[in-house]
């Protein structure tokens, strides 16, 4: 019997190893799998490369993972946002690397990685410093830059509802990077607000088909990151 449901975030992240490449869903707090990230902090894997649009806020979620020196390198499009102090501080000290990628290129690199496409050409960043050293090629008189697909060992994703096959639906703009990240990792680990019965998600409405998902854990009341940041909480909880 196929049953991808596991009983705790700790069980979901148990196999993550030192040096792993990890995609973490979310755009700001929307879609950030904060309970899985906290379980990963407890689990202890280090020297990670993290692919995520942002670098987290305050001292919870991704920001806390970075603060605990588990992240060697971030691949992201917007590392400084309101209330993100941890990454800028460590970056300026030279304690964490950064690969800056335009947001659409980041999404497409992940999509390509998941689709078995090793590289592609895009117009984004041509004639800018972010295209320096990259292969350029003209098609129909327009210059494009070559970018590589991205794959990961693990993806951590948050969704609204999942069934035991790993079929997923999302909530509003929390969908963001989730569906493409699910396709691009060896093992996609998902936290779902609700586990539902097979068939409860209309097959016409499944956003991520279960084939892309390895494990699902139910987290009924996920943390509201901006609330935690406003309350100046830090993980591990004091």
């Amino acid at each position: 019997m196929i049953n991808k449901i596991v009983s705790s975030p700790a069980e979901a992240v148990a196999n993550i190893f030192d040096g792993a490449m990890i995609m973490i869903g979310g755009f700001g707090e929307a879609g950030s799998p904060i309970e899985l990230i906290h379980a990963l902090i407890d689990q202890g894997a280090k020297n990670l490369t993290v692919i995520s649009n942002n670098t987290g806020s305050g001292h919870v979620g991704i920001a806390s993972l970075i603060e605990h020196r588990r992240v060697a390198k971030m691949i992201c499009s917007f590392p400084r946002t309101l209330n993100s102090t941890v990454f800028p501080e460590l970056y300026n000290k030279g304690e964490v690397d950064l690969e800056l990628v335009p947001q659409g290129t980041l999404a497409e690199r992940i999509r390509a990685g998941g689709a078995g496409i090793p590289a592609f050409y895009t117009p984004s960043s041509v004639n800018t410093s972010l295209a320096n050293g990259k292969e350029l090629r003209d098609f129909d008189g327009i210059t494009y830059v070559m970018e590589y697909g991205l794959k990961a060992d693990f993806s951590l994703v948050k969704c609204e509802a999942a069934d035991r096959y790993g079929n997923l639906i999302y909530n509003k703009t929390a969908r963001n990077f989730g569906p493409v990240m699910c396709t691009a990792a060896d093992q996609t680990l998902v936290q779902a607000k609700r586990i539902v019965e097979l068939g409860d998600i209309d097959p016409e409405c499944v956003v991520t088909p279960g084939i892309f998902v390895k494990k699902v854990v139910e987290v009924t009341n996920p943390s509201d990151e901006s609330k935690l940041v406003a309350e100046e909480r830090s993980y591990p909880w004091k």
Partner: protein
Amino acid sequence: MEIKETKVGWSRIEMAQKVALDIPDESYVNLGIGLPELVADHVPEGREVIYHTENGLLGMGPIPEESERDPELINAGKKNITAIKGGSFFHHADSFTMIRGKHIDICVLGAFQVSKDGDIANWSTGKPGAIPAVGGAMDLVAGVKRIFVITQHNTKDGKSKLVNECTYPLTGKGVVETIYTNLAIIDLKKEGLVVREMGPNVDFEYLQEHTEAPLIKS
């Protein structure tokens, strides 16, 4: 002695109104963070414009009441928003398919500098020690059909934002169609920077004095 100040140029709201007038009915529009967001409040009656926010929503609606705030419904500036009836959610690769694939009609952006050739710099001042962050800016200028810039004409220390060559790191080259400032509306055409309209109490000489790049009277 009493000095009565004469109003020179347009207010932020008037600037946003000018941009909104140039957005045709039935357009799909992406608005940048900050001043561009004001444009949505000033679309003339009778026009239906659909707003795209690159984090994954077509049909962005107004800001909700605090009690209606949904942390999973935000815009590209990570502010809480609403979705209109008929809106749709999608993932990031689809969102940037709309952008890069030339499906979005107009993007309204802020800028640090725009050059006479339509180059735009709006992601980094290149300051040492600054954390580089680009977001979707480079994808938007590379992919959206028409790029409008809304910005103050001069920086706080009086420097022209309309320059001969951008000195800040570029976001894109030769992409800007029109720039809307507090002093004027300027179209970037083959023949150069053509002044289409000037704000109250602004004349051509005054405008040129406040602009590094050479301007052309329309």
